[in-house]
C-alpha cells in the first residue's frame, strides 16, 4: 500500500532562520516515533506537516494528496490531526464545548456522536468534569481533552507532540494505554516523545531528529531495545553509562 504520510526533503523554519534541512520520512502502515534532543526541529517538523508553518522546500504527501502548500484547515479536513505540545486549548470553554468544536471539520460532522462516545470511552474521567472550563483542569486532564478534541476530528493520522510532558508517572501509564487503544482502533500515530519506554510501547518505526535532519532510523522489525536508542541518542561513548 502507499504511505499515509510521506515527507520528502523537507525544509522549513521561522522567517529567515532555517530549522529543518531536508527531512524525509514515511509512515508505511506503522506508527512512527520521533525522538532527539530538544531544539533540533521535531516540533517544527510537526508544525510544518500540519500546515501551521509553510515548508520552504520539499514535499509533504498525505492520504494520496500533495498537501505541501495547503493551509492547516484543509489538511485537517483530510484527516490529519495535530495535538500540539502543552496546549492551553480554550481556557474559558467547558469540556463539552471544546469537544463540540473538535467536530468542526466537515468530514467529522456525520460521525460526531460516535466519536464523542469513543472519546468518552477512552477517557471516562472527562465525563466527571463535563461542564467545567478547561482552565480549571490539571495538566493530565487537559492533555486528555486535547487528544479527545483531535479524536472528534475523526483522524486517519494523529500527531502527538510530547503528550506526557510534565505528567506524573501514573498518569503517563494511563495516557499510554489510552493512546494504544486509539491506535488499535485503526488510527495511525506520529509521536514525539522524550520518554523512550513510552515511545517503544507505541511506535514501530523510529527516527532520530538531530540538527534538523534525520540522524538515524530504526525500521520495523529491527531490534529496538532501550540500550540501542540511548546509544543513538547520546553517542557511542556514553553507551556503557546507561
Amino acid at each position: 500500500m502507499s504511505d499515509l504520510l510521506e515527507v520528502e526533503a523537507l525544509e522549513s523554519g521561522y522567517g529567515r532562520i532555517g530549522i529543518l534541512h531536508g527531512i524525509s520520512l514515511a509512515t508505511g502502515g506503522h506508527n512512527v516515533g520521533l525522538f532527539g534532543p530538544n531544539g533540533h526541529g521535531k516540533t517544527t517538523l510537526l508544525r510544518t506537516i500540519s500546515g501551521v508553518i509553510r515548508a520552504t522546500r520539499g514535499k509533504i504527501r498525505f492520504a494520496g494528496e500533495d498537501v505541501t502548500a495547503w493551509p492547516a484547515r484543509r489538511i485537517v479536513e483530510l484527516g490529519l490531526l495535530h495535538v500540539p505540545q502543552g496546549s492551553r486549548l480554550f481556557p474559558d470553554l467547558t469540556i463539552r464545548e471544546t469537544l463540540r468544536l473538535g467536530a468542526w471539520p466537515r468530514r467529522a460532522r456525520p460521525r460526531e456522536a460516535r466519536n464523542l462516545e469513543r472519546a468518552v470511552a477512552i477517557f471516562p474521567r472527562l465525563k466527571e468534569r463535563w461542564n467545567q472550563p478547561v482552565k480549571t483542569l490539571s495538566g493530565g486532564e487537559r492533555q486528555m481533552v486535547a487528544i479527545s478534541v483531535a479524536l472528534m476530528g475523526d483522524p486517519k493520522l494523529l500527531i502527538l507532540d510530547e503528550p506526557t510532558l510534565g505528567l506524573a508517572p501514573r498518569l503517563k501509564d494511563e495516557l499510554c494505554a489510552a493512546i494504544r487503544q486509539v491506535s488499535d482502533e485503526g488510527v495511525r500515530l506520529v509521536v514525539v516523545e522524550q520518554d523512550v519506554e513510552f515511545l517503544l510501547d507505541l511506535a514501530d518505526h523510529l527516527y532520530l531528529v538531530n540538527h534538523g535532519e534525520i540522524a538515524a532510523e530504526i525500521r520495523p522489525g529491527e531490534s529496538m531495545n532501550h540500550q540501542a536508542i540511548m546509544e543513538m541518542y547520546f553517542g557511542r561513548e556514553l553507551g556503557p553509562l546507561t
Partner: protein
Amino acid sequence: MTVLGQILLSALFQGSLYAMMAVGLALVWTTIGVFNFCHGVLMTLGAYLAWQFVDPEALGLPMFVALPLALLVVAAIGFALQALLIRPFIGRGDVVLVAVITTLAASSILKNGTLLVWGPRPKSIPPLAPDTIALGASNVSAHQLAIIAITPVVLGLVWLFLNRTRVGLALRAVAQNEDACQLVGMNVTALYALAFGLAAALAALAGIFFGGFKFMSPDMGTEPLTKALVVVIFGGIANITGPILAAYIIGLFEAVSIYYVGFYWTPALLFAVLIVVLMVRPEGLFARSSRGLA
C-alpha cells in the same frame, strides 16, 4: 408619570442604545484583539442606508425589506473593512496601535464619504412604531418602547449564538487560542470577518434606532461611539455580558444625574466616576482577567 417612572424609562432607553453599540465593540475586541474606531461611522452608515432603502424620495422599499437589507450591506462593509484595515497587520507586535490609526482614518473617510453621497441636509427614517402610548398619565413614544423591547431580544440572540452554536463557540475560541483553532480546522480569517461583520450589523441596527427619533447627520456616530467606549471601559471589554450590564447601569446613572445634578455636569461626573472605577478595577466592573466572549 412619576419621576421614578421617567428616570427608569430614560435609563432603559439610553441603556438599550448604549448596549447595542457597545456589544459590537466588545465582540471585535474579544475575537480579534483590536479596537474598532469605525464602529460609530458604521452606525451612521446603517442609518443612511436604511434611509436610502426606505425613504419615498429614494428607493421607497417597505420597512421589513429595507431594514434587513441595510443591516446586510453594513455587515458586508464591515467584512471589507476588516480585510483592509486589520487583517494585513495581524501578527505584528503593534497591531493594536496600528489598528487604532487605520480604523480612525477609515472612520474619517467613511464619515466624509457619507457627507459626499447624502449631503449635509438632516434626514430621518420612520420610527419602528409610529404612535405614542399612554403610560399612566403621560404619553410615551412607541418607538422608544420598541427599542427597549427589541434590544434585549437581539442581545439575547447574540448571546445564544455565542454560547449555543458551533460557529459562536468558534468565535469565542478564536479569542482564546488562535493556533488551536487552526488545528481543529477552522478558517480563522473567516471567523475574524464574521465577528467584524456581526459587530457592524449591530452598529447599523443602533443607527436605525437613532434615525427613528433624531435627525441624522454624517457626524451622528461620534457621540454614540464615545458613549460605547465609556460603556466598555466601565463594563470590561473581555466579554459581552459585562458591557451589556454596564450600558444599563450608565443609562441609569445618567438619568439620575441629569435629574438631580443637572445636564451640564453629568458628562464630567460620568467620566470622573469612570476613572475612579478603573483605578480600582482596571479590567472593568464585571470582567474576568482573560479575554473571552460571553
